[in-house]
């Protein structure tokens, strides 16, 4: 391609953006709004996922040992649990600490130990975290069959229900994002198609004077790329600032909700949106032109 041609084609793209001012504005606006809505729900879904992950990772198993287990037996059980497949972390809670916790729940002014007649009835216990929260039932099952283990508790029934709710949240998030992506693709494609349709006469004349297909397609491709990038840039900028503001607000008022604050991850997500908009614009217009090239 000659330099004159490159200059001409880029010039054509810019001139036609200016010349078709309203259509350019409409395309950019469509891209910006679609991408903003899509991005909003994408961030919502990602955050819902994070909340789900956090809740899941808080699931733990309480292993209560036999009350008369000796320190050696407790220790060997501890070693066995640590060595078990799928176990992430084991915390030993000696019976004294367990009593402390319990008495604190009753209030500082009560001396629980004294009330119990100087004998601590609580057993030693372990808090076990598993690598995969979904395996909590299986791991608990195995643990219950260990020597010196009296009882195993992990909120059976409740945990399964919680997981199915979390699955729903994840699934819904994905479905909404996929549907919105499709909606964005269609909206943008239709708008681009209209801009190309408005210029079909120009395309026909280009064909008559012997323009090759790529010569006609390049300005449209560049124009689509430019408008797509501009639109999604607006969307991502708006998303970035409103999200940052929202995160600051939530962190200050409802701090127990975990939110994605990792700037790098956030920028990656926004960059994907930006690239998506640019590609949609460019490819969309290149494809839309094709219909009018068959002259």
């Amino acid at each position, binding site marked *: *391609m*000659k330099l*004159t*041609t490159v200059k*001409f084609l880029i010039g054509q793209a810019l001139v036609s953006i200016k*010349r078709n001012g309203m259509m350019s504005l409409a395309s950019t606006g469509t891209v910006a709004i679609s991408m903003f809505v899509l991005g909003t729900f994408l961030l919502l879904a990602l955050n819902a996922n994070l909340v789900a992950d956090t809740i899941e990772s808080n699931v733990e198993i309480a292993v209560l040992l036999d009350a008369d287990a000796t320190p050696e037996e407790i220790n060997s059980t501890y070693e066995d649990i640590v060595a078990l497949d799928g176990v992430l972390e084991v915390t030993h809670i000696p019976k004294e600490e367990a009593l402390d916790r319990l008495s604190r729940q009753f209030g500082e002014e009560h001396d629980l130990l004294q009330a119990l007649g100087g004998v601590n009835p609580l057993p030693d216990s372990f808090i076990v975290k598993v690598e995969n929260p979904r395996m909590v039932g299986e791991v608990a099952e195995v643990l219950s069959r260990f020597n010196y283990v009296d009882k195993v508790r992990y909120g059976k029934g409740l945990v399964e229900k919680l997981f199915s709710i979390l699955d729903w949240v994840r699934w819904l998030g994905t479905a909404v994002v996929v549907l919105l992506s499709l909606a964005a693709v269609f909206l943008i494609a239709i708008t681009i198609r209209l801009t190309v349709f408005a210029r079909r*006469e*120009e395309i*026909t*004349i*280009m*064909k*008559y*004077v*012997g*323009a*090759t*297909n790529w*010569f006609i397609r390049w300005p449209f491709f560049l124009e689509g790329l430019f408008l797509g990038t501009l639109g999604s840039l607006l969307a991502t900028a708006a998303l970035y600032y409103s999200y940052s503001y929202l995160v600051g607000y939530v962190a200050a008022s409802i701090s127990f909700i975990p939110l994605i604050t990792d700037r790098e991850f956030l920028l990656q997500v926004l960059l994907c949106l930006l690239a998506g908009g640019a590609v949609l614009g460019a490819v969309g217009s290149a494809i839309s032109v094709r219909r009018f090239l068959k*002259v």
Partner: protein
Amino acid sequence: MIHLYNVTKEYPNGVVALKNVTVNINKGEFVFLVGPSGAGKSTFIRLIFREELPTSGQVIIAGKSIARLRPSKVAVLRRNIGVVFQDFRLLPDRTVFENVAFAMRVLQYSQREIDQRVPEVLHLVGLTSKAGNYPYQLSGGEQQRTAIARAIVNNPKILVADEPTGNLDPETSWEIMHLLYEINKRGTTLIVATHDQKIVDAMKRRVIALDRGRLVRDDQEGGYGL
């Protein structure tokens, strides 16, 4: 230069626009294509610059059958054929200069070559003073001159014109026809589809007459006939 062998063109809607037409047109000829509306004149023209393909038969331009051309070769073919339409088909948002230059940009000429060649052609068609005007600022005749300038700016070997004077008054028609004649004298093969009986009769050129898709007459120095 242009050969049609036993060409039949049937459109998808069942209309047979041309039926078993065989025509040879030599280099440098000036040919009128006459006949009533719907006789197949426009289809004839469209076949030559390959806007349409024949249903059967062969259309051979400069030694090549148009049916077997790949899209990139179609573009090359069209660069050797200038086209002029009844409705001018100018780009409304560009000046006369840019409309003509457009055909050169497509062929990747440099700005220097464009700045040199376009004024030459505009001078030839008598539009030097209108170079900066937009199509809506021009008369019909001036618009058609612009279209002709665009069609010949790349020195095509063939120029086809589909009712070039159909939208113009008689006097302007004569001016346009005279311009086409001048272009023909420079060696360009010219095919003009027209209704204009007076012009055809007066110019005494080869006349190919079509009627309902059939070739009914081919006279070397004919009149419009009836």
